[in-house]
């Protein structure tokens, strides 16, 4: 699967929690949002949401801007 534009070692069936873990983030990380295949995945679903082999995951946070 693709995480933030780069291919990831995370395998199909693993959850968003695993993706966050690979980025050094906890489930309660502040100011973080996740989209999978162009859809928002609410924080309450991160532990259960199983990712497909070809999932495109975006893990986003606050940056200076505007």
């Amino acid at each position, binding site marked *: 699967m693709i995480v*933030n*534009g780069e291919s990831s070692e995370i395998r199909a069936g693993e959850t968003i929690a695993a993706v966050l873990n690979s*980025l*050094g*983030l906890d489930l309660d990380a*502040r*100011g*973080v*949002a*996740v*989209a999978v295949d*162009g*859809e*928002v995945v*609410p*924080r309450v679903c991160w532990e259960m949401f199983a990712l497909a082999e070809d999932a495109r995951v*975006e*893990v*986003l*946070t*606050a*940056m*200076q*801007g*505007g």
Partner: protein
Amino acid sequence: MIRGVAIAQTDTDPLVIAGRTLRSRLLLGTGGFPSLELLSAAIAASGSELVTVALRRIDPAARGSLIDVLAGAGVQLLPNTAGCYTARDAVLTAKLAREAFATDWVKLEVIGDEDTLLPDAAELLIAAEELVDEGFVVLPYTTDDPILARRLAGVGCAAVMPLGSPIGSGMGIRNPYNIGLIREAVDVPVVLDAGVGTASDAAIAMELGCDAVMAASAISRAQDPVRMASAMRHAVQAGRQARLAGRIPRRLYATASTPEEGLPDFGPV
């Protein structure tokens, strides 16, 4: 009396957006600050209570947390949708920002091209309507078009944010007449966004009737951002006071402020 003026500025003349009362009429953009320390000092100097943030891919190697700095400053976050070129992307970004920052406020930007960074009016209106329907408090970055501003207010935007000139250009307000027309066209707050280059631009915006000014690059890219933040704070206050005070009309010829009566006659030269 000086005490009375101070009270008038802070307590009896607040900015209200979507039912939220703000004592400062200066919105601060966080883009372009060379460090979080400078950003933090500039927020304090600006007095701003509403501060924009963008949403980008997380960088695990990034040092320091913008979120922590802003939380420490006690400001309200205003997530933006900068970098979005379609209504779809802007709506999705707003929803992600709501998840990330637990706020339903959004500074809606839908950009038309990368050279001018001017808003794409058609996409902007579509996105604004959809986000209002989704329960967002929408503050759209818009052109200085009074008709578009009215359409945006009409679909339920909580404020309109017309540009003075292109983002980061520092060219000030290129069409002050349109900004004045926008103030008359809508009942929601008008926040002058983009183009402010220095303090006088902010004062002019307020004198034209804007309810607030948003500044980012003008402060963050100034040689001394903290001093410029303070200058902007005072310019916004001065411009607001001047607007409320009511300026004199412009005239081609002089009007003596000293009475003619009682002039002595010194005889022939």
